[in-house]
Protein backbone atom coordinates (compact mmCIF):
# COMPACT_ATOMS: atom_id res chain seq x y z
CA UNK A 1 0.00 0.00 0.00
CA UNK A 2 2.82 2.38 0.86
CA UNK A 3 4.27 1.94 -2.62
CA UNK A 4 1.15 3.58 -4.07
CA UNK A 5 1.67 6.62 -1.90
CA UNK A 6 5.34 6.76 -2.86
CA UNK A 7 4.08 8.31 -6.11
CA UNK A 8 2.63 11.19 -4.11
CA UNK A 9 5.99 11.60 -2.43
CA UNK A 10 7.76 11.67 -5.79
CA UNK A 11 5.28 14.21 -7.12
CA UNK A 12 5.69 16.30 -3.98
CA UNK A 13 9.47 16.39 -4.31
CA UNK A 14 9.22 17.18 -8.04
CA UNK A 15 6.69 19.95 -7.38
CA UNK A 16 8.82 21.44 -4.59
CA UNK A 17 12.00 21.37 -6.67
CA UNK A 18 10.20 23.03 -9.60
CA UNK A 19 10.30 26.54 -8.09
CA UNK A 20 13.33 25.99 -5.84
CA UNK A 21 15.85 24.84 -8.49
CA UNK A 22 15.37 27.85 -10.84
CA UNK A 23 15.66 30.19 -7.85
CA UNK A 24 18.94 28.54 -6.79
CA UNK A 25 20.19 28.71 -10.40
CA UNK A 26 19.19 32.35 -10.65
CA UNK A 27 20.93 33.13 -7.37
CA UNK A 28 24.27 32.01 -8.80
CA UNK A 29 23.80 33.48 -12.29
CA UNK A 30 22.26 36.90 -11.67
CA UNK A 31 24.25 40.07 -11.07
CA UNK A 32 23.41 41.76 -7.78
CA UNK A 33 23.13 45.54 -8.07
CA UNK A 34 20.34 46.61 -5.71
CA UNK A 35 19.13 50.20 -5.75
CA UNK A 36 16.52 51.85 -3.59
CA UNK A 37 13.96 51.85 -6.41
CA UNK A 38 14.52 48.16 -7.16
CA UNK A 39 14.00 47.17 -3.53
CA UNK A 40 10.81 49.23 -3.18
CA UNK A 41 7.43 47.53 -2.77
CA UNK A 42 5.86 46.98 -6.16
CA UNK A 43 2.16 47.77 -6.25
CA UNK A 44 1.00 47.96 -9.88
CA UNK A 45 3.61 50.65 -10.58
CA UNK A 46 2.06 53.01 -8.05
CA UNK A 47 3.63 54.19 -4.85
CA UNK A 48 2.38 52.07 -1.95
CA UNK A 49 0.28 54.04 0.53
CA UNK A 50 -0.51 52.99 4.09
CA UNK A 51 -0.02 49.75 5.93
CA UNK A 52 -0.42 46.27 4.45
CA UNK A 53 -1.84 45.20 7.79
CA UNK A 54 -5.61 45.59 7.53
CA UNK A 55 -8.11 44.30 10.03
CA UNK A 56 -10.44 41.68 8.65
CA UNK A 57 -14.15 41.71 9.28
CA UNK A 58 -15.35 39.34 11.99
CA UNK A 59 -17.54 37.69 9.35
CA UNK A 60 -14.57 35.96 7.79
CA UNK A 61 -13.86 34.35 11.14
CA UNK A 62 -17.46 33.24 11.65
CA UNK A 63 -17.54 31.75 8.17
CA UNK A 64 -14.25 29.96 8.82
CA UNK A 65 -15.56 28.62 12.10
CA UNK A 66 -18.82 27.39 10.60
CA UNK A 67 -16.68 25.81 7.88
CA UNK A 68 -14.53 23.98 10.45
CA UNK A 69 -17.59 22.67 12.29
CA UNK A 70 -19.25 21.32 9.17
CA UNK A 71 -15.94 20.09 7.79
CA UNK A 72 -15.53 17.90 10.88
CA UNK A 73 -19.13 16.78 10.52
CA UNK A 74 -18.39 15.59 6.98
CA UNK A 75 -15.28 13.80 8.26
CA UNK A 76 -17.58 11.80 10.54
CA UNK A 77 -19.89 11.08 7.63
CA UNK A 78 -17.21 9.43 5.46
CA UNK A 79 -16.48 6.30 7.56
CA UNK A 80 -20.19 5.98 8.32
CA UNK A 81 -21.01 6.00 4.62
CA UNK A 82 -18.27 3.46 3.80
CA UNK A 83 -19.47 1.08 6.53
CA UNK A 84 -23.16 1.76 5.91
CA UNK A 85 -23.97 -1.60 4.30
CA UNK A 86 -22.75 -3.49 7.35
CA UNK A 87 -24.58 -1.37 9.90
CA UNK A 88 -28.25 -1.19 8.98
CA UNK A 89 -31.09 0.95 10.29
CA UNK A 90 -29.58 1.64 13.71
CA UNK A 91 -26.66 3.50 12.15
CA UNK A 92 -29.04 5.54 10.02
CA UNK A 93 -30.93 6.66 13.13
CA UNK A 94 -27.70 7.42 14.97
CA UNK A 95 -26.38 9.54 12.12
CA UNK A 96 -29.74 11.31 11.90
CA UNK A 97 -29.42 12.26 15.59
CA UNK A 98 -25.83 13.39 15.01
CA UNK A 99 -26.85 15.59 12.09
CA UNK A 100 -29.95 16.86 13.89
CA UNK A 101 -27.86 18.18 16.80
CA UNK A 102 -25.58 20.00 14.37
CA UNK A 103 -28.48 21.38 12.36
CA UNK A 104 -29.51 23.01 15.64
CA UNK A 105 -26.27 24.95 15.49
CA UNK A 106 -26.88 25.91 11.88
CA UNK A 107 -30.37 27.17 12.73
CA UNK A 108 -28.91 29.21 15.59
CA UNK A 109 -26.29 30.75 13.30
CA UNK A 110 -28.98 31.47 10.71
CA UNK A 111 -31.33 33.13 13.18
CA UNK A 112 -28.50 35.24 14.56
CA UNK A 113 -27.86 36.36 11.02
CA UNK A 114 -24.26 35.20 11.28
CA UNK A 115 -24.48 33.81 7.75
CA UNK A 116 -25.50 37.15 6.25
CA UNK A 117 -22.79 39.27 4.73
CA UNK A 118 -22.90 42.82 6.05
Amino acid at each position, binding site marked *: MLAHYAFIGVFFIAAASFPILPLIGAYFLRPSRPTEVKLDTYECGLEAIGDIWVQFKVQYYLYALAF*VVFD*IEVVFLY*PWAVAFN*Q*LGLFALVEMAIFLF*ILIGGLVYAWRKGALEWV
Partner: protein
Amino acid sequence: MNILIMVIFVVLAAFTLAAGVMVVTVKNIIHAALWLIASFFSVAAMYLLMEAEFIAIVQVLVYVGAISILVLFAIMLTRHVTGEGVRQLYKRWWIALIVAAALFGVLIVPTVFNYEWAVQPSGAQISIASTVEIGTAFMREYLLPFEVASVLLLVALIGAIVIAFEERSTRRRVLTLAEEVEQRRQRNESLRLAPTTHASETSE
Protein backbone atom coordinates in the same frame (compact mmCIF):
# COMPACT_ATOMS: atom_id res chain seq x y z
CA MET B 1 12.36 -1.41 2.03
CA ASN B 2 12.52 -1.13 5.82
CA ILE B 3 15.59 1.05 5.59
CA LEU B 4 13.80 3.28 3.10
CA ILE B 5 10.81 3.67 5.42
CA MET B 6 13.17 4.45 8.29
CA VAL B 7 14.89 7.14 6.21
CA ILE B 8 11.55 8.67 5.22
CA PHE B 9 10.44 8.60 8.86
CA VAL B 10 13.59 10.36 10.06
CA VAL B 11 13.29 13.02 7.35
CA LEU B 12 9.61 13.61 8.19
CA ALA B 13 10.25 13.67 11.95
CA ALA B 14 13.13 16.12 11.50
CA PHE B 15 10.97 18.36 9.30
CA THR B 16 8.07 18.26 11.78
CA LEU B 17 10.32 19.22 14.66
CA ALA B 18 12.11 21.91 12.65
CA ALA B 19 8.78 23.41 11.59
CA GLY B 20 7.62 23.31 15.21
CA VAL B 21 10.74 25.14 16.35
CA MET B 22 10.17 27.74 13.61
CA VAL B 23 6.59 28.28 14.87
CA VAL B 24 7.82 29.41 18.26
CA THR B 25 10.93 31.28 17.11
CA VAL B 26 9.94 33.34 14.04
CA LYS B 27 9.07 36.96 14.80
CA ASN B 28 6.25 37.40 12.29
CA ILE B 29 3.11 35.70 13.56
CA ILE B 30 1.81 35.02 10.02
CA HIS B 31 5.03 33.18 9.26
CA ALA B 32 4.56 31.21 12.48
CA ALA B 33 1.09 30.15 11.27
CA LEU B 34 2.52 29.07 7.90
CA TRP B 35 5.19 26.99 9.63
CA LEU B 36 2.43 25.43 11.72
CA ILE B 37 0.68 24.40 8.49
CA ALA B 38 3.95 22.87 7.27
CA SER B 39 4.24 20.82 10.45
CA PHE B 40 0.57 19.71 10.14
CA PHE B 41 1.36 18.55 6.63
CA SER B 42 4.35 16.47 7.63
CA VAL B 43 2.31 14.91 10.44
CA ALA B 44 -0.21 13.88 7.76
CA ALA B 45 2.64 12.28 5.81
CA MET B 46 3.64 10.50 9.02
CA TYR B 47 0.12 9.03 9.34
CA LEU B 48 0.37 7.84 5.75
CA LEU B 49 3.67 6.17 6.60
CA MET B 50 1.82 4.31 9.37
CA GLU B 51 -0.71 3.18 6.71
CA ALA B 52 -3.48 5.14 8.43
CA GLU B 53 -4.88 6.53 5.17
CA PHE B 54 -8.13 7.88 6.50
CA ILE B 55 -6.52 9.70 9.40
CA ALA B 56 -3.91 11.17 7.05
CA ILE B 57 -6.61 12.53 4.72
CA VAL B 58 -8.56 13.86 7.70
CA GLN B 59 -5.41 15.54 8.98
CA VAL B 60 -5.05 17.35 5.65
CA LEU B 61 -8.78 18.16 5.41
CA VAL B 62 -9.28 19.39 8.95
CA TYR B 63 -5.91 20.71 10.12
CA VAL B 64 -4.26 21.87 6.90
CA GLY B 65 -7.57 22.91 5.31
CA ALA B 66 -9.76 24.23 8.07
CA ILE B 67 -7.87 24.84 11.32
CA SER B 68 -5.07 26.75 9.61
CA ILE B 69 -7.61 28.97 7.85
CA LEU B 70 -9.15 29.64 11.24
CA VAL B 71 -5.77 30.49 12.75
CA LEU B 72 -4.92 32.85 9.87
CA PHE B 73 -8.29 34.60 10.08
CA ALA B 74 -7.92 34.94 13.84
CA ILE B 75 -4.55 36.64 13.29
CA MET B 76 -5.96 38.92 10.61
CA LEU B 77 -8.86 39.90 12.85
CA THR B 78 -6.52 41.30 15.46
CA ARG B 79 -5.11 44.73 14.86
CA HIS B 80 -1.39 45.46 14.53
CA VAL B 81 0.10 42.27 15.90
CA THR B 82 2.81 41.47 13.40
CA GLY B 83 4.87 40.33 16.38
CA GLU B 84 7.74 42.63 15.40
CA GLY B 85 9.34 44.11 18.48
CA VAL B 86 7.21 42.02 20.82
CA ARG B 87 8.96 39.98 23.49
CA GLN B 88 8.48 36.35 22.51
CA LEU B 89 9.47 34.82 25.81
CA TYR B 90 6.72 34.90 28.40
CA LYS B 91 7.70 35.95 31.92
CA ARG B 92 6.91 32.59 33.49
CA TRP B 93 8.35 30.51 30.66
CA TRP B 94 9.83 28.01 33.09
CA ILE B 95 6.33 26.80 34.13
CA ALA B 96 5.58 26.03 30.48
CA LEU B 97 8.95 24.31 30.25
CA ILE B 98 8.15 22.05 33.22
CA VAL B 99 4.70 21.15 31.84
CA ALA B 100 6.08 20.45 28.36
CA ALA B 101 8.94 18.37 29.74
CA ALA B 102 6.54 16.37 31.94
CA LEU B 103 4.21 15.66 29.00
CA PHE B 104 7.16 14.65 26.84
CA GLY B 105 8.48 12.46 29.65
CA VAL B 106 5.15 10.61 29.93
CA LEU B 107 5.64 9.53 26.32
CA ILE B 108 9.36 9.02 26.09
CA VAL B 109 10.12 7.24 29.39
CA PRO B 110 7.90 4.16 28.75
CA THR B 111 9.17 4.03 25.16
CA VAL B 112 12.78 3.99 26.30
CA PHE B 113 12.07 1.26 28.84
CA ASN B 114 10.26 -0.89 26.24
CA TYR B 115 6.84 -0.57 27.80
CA GLU B 116 4.15 -2.62 25.98
CA TRP B 117 1.56 -0.14 24.80
CA ALA B 118 -2.04 -1.34 24.86
CA VAL B 119 -2.76 -0.97 21.15
CA GLN B 120 -6.23 -2.49 20.95
CA PRO B 121 -8.76 -2.31 23.76
CA SER B 122 -10.41 -5.65 22.92
CA GLY B 123 -7.35 -7.55 21.72
CA ALA B 124 -8.80 -7.93 18.24
CA GLN B 125 -6.37 -7.78 15.34
CA ILE B 126 -8.40 -5.32 13.25
CA SER B 127 -6.53 -2.39 11.81
CA ILE B 128 -8.23 0.70 13.18
CA ALA B 129 -6.81 2.70 10.32
CA SER B 130 -9.18 1.35 7.70
CA THR B 131 -12.17 3.53 6.97
CA VAL B 132 -14.73 0.73 7.32
CA GLU B 133 -13.39 -0.19 10.75
CA ILE B 134 -13.60 3.41 11.89
CA GLY B 135 -17.17 3.62 10.60
CA THR B 136 -18.32 0.47 12.40
CA ALA B 137 -16.43 1.44 15.56
CA PHE B 138 -18.29 4.77 15.64
CA MET B 139 -21.63 2.98 15.46
CA ARG B 140 -20.78 0.26 18.01
CA GLU B 141 -18.03 0.69 20.62
CA TYR B 142 -17.68 4.45 20.37
CA LEU B 143 -21.30 5.41 19.88
CA LEU B 144 -21.52 7.72 22.87
CA PRO B 145 -18.28 9.63 22.11
CA PHE B 146 -19.54 9.95 18.53
CA GLU B 147 -22.79 11.58 19.62
CA VAL B 148 -21.01 13.70 22.23
CA ALA B 149 -18.75 14.95 19.42
CA SER B 150 -21.77 16.48 17.70
CA VAL B 151 -22.71 18.28 20.93
CA LEU B 152 -19.12 19.52 21.17
CA LEU B 153 -19.26 20.86 17.62
CA LEU B 154 -22.58 22.53 18.41
CA VAL B 155 -21.08 24.20 21.48
CA ALA B 156 -18.11 25.38 19.40
CA LEU B 157 -20.37 26.95 16.78
CA ILE B 158 -22.75 28.65 19.22
CA GLY B 159 -19.92 29.71 21.50
CA ALA B 160 -18.04 31.38 18.66
CA ILE B 161 -21.10 33.35 17.60
CA VAL B 162 -21.82 34.42 21.19
CA ILE B 163 -18.21 35.51 21.76
CA ALA B 164 -18.06 37.36 18.44
CA PHE B 165 -21.19 39.34 19.29
CA GLU B 166 -21.34 39.21 23.05
CA GLU B 167 -23.69 42.17 23.34
CA ARG B 168 -26.49 40.07 21.95
CA SER B 169 -26.47 37.57 24.77
CA THR B 170 -27.85 40.17 27.17
CA ARG B 171 -30.91 40.80 24.98
CA ARG B 172 -33.98 38.73 24.81
CA ARG B 173 -34.64 39.17 21.11
CA VAL B 174 -32.20 37.77 18.61
CA LEU B 175 -30.69 40.65 16.65
CA THR B 176 -29.49 40.20 13.14
CA LEU B 177 -25.94 41.10 12.31
CA ALA B 178 -27.06 44.17 10.34
CA GLU B 179 -28.81 45.58 13.40
CA GLU B 180 -25.76 44.83 15.50
CA VAL B 181 -23.42 46.66 13.13
CA GLU B 182 -25.80 49.62 13.05
CA GLN B 183 -25.80 49.79 16.86
CA ARG B 184 -22.03 49.65 16.96
CA ARG B 185 -21.80 52.44 14.40
CA GLN B 186 -24.13 54.61 16.43
CA ARG B 187 -22.19 53.97 19.61
CA ASN B 188 -18.91 54.80 17.88
CA GLU B 189 -20.36 58.06 16.59
CA SER B 190 -21.53 59.07 20.04
CA LEU B 191 -18.02 58.33 21.31
CA ARG B 192 -16.50 60.42 18.56
CA LEU B 193 -18.62 63.42 19.56
CA ALA B 194 -17.19 63.33 23.09
CA PRO B 195 -14.16 65.69 23.21
CA THR B 196 -11.85 63.46 25.28
CA THR B 197 -11.87 60.52 22.92
CA HIS B 198 -11.67 62.70 19.85
CA ALA B 199 -7.90 63.13 20.05
CA SER B 200 -7.17 59.45 20.36
CA GLU B 201 -9.53 58.60 17.50
CA THR B 202 -7.83 60.91 15.02
CA SER B 203 -4.33 60.00 16.06
CA GLU B 204 -4.90 56.36 15.25
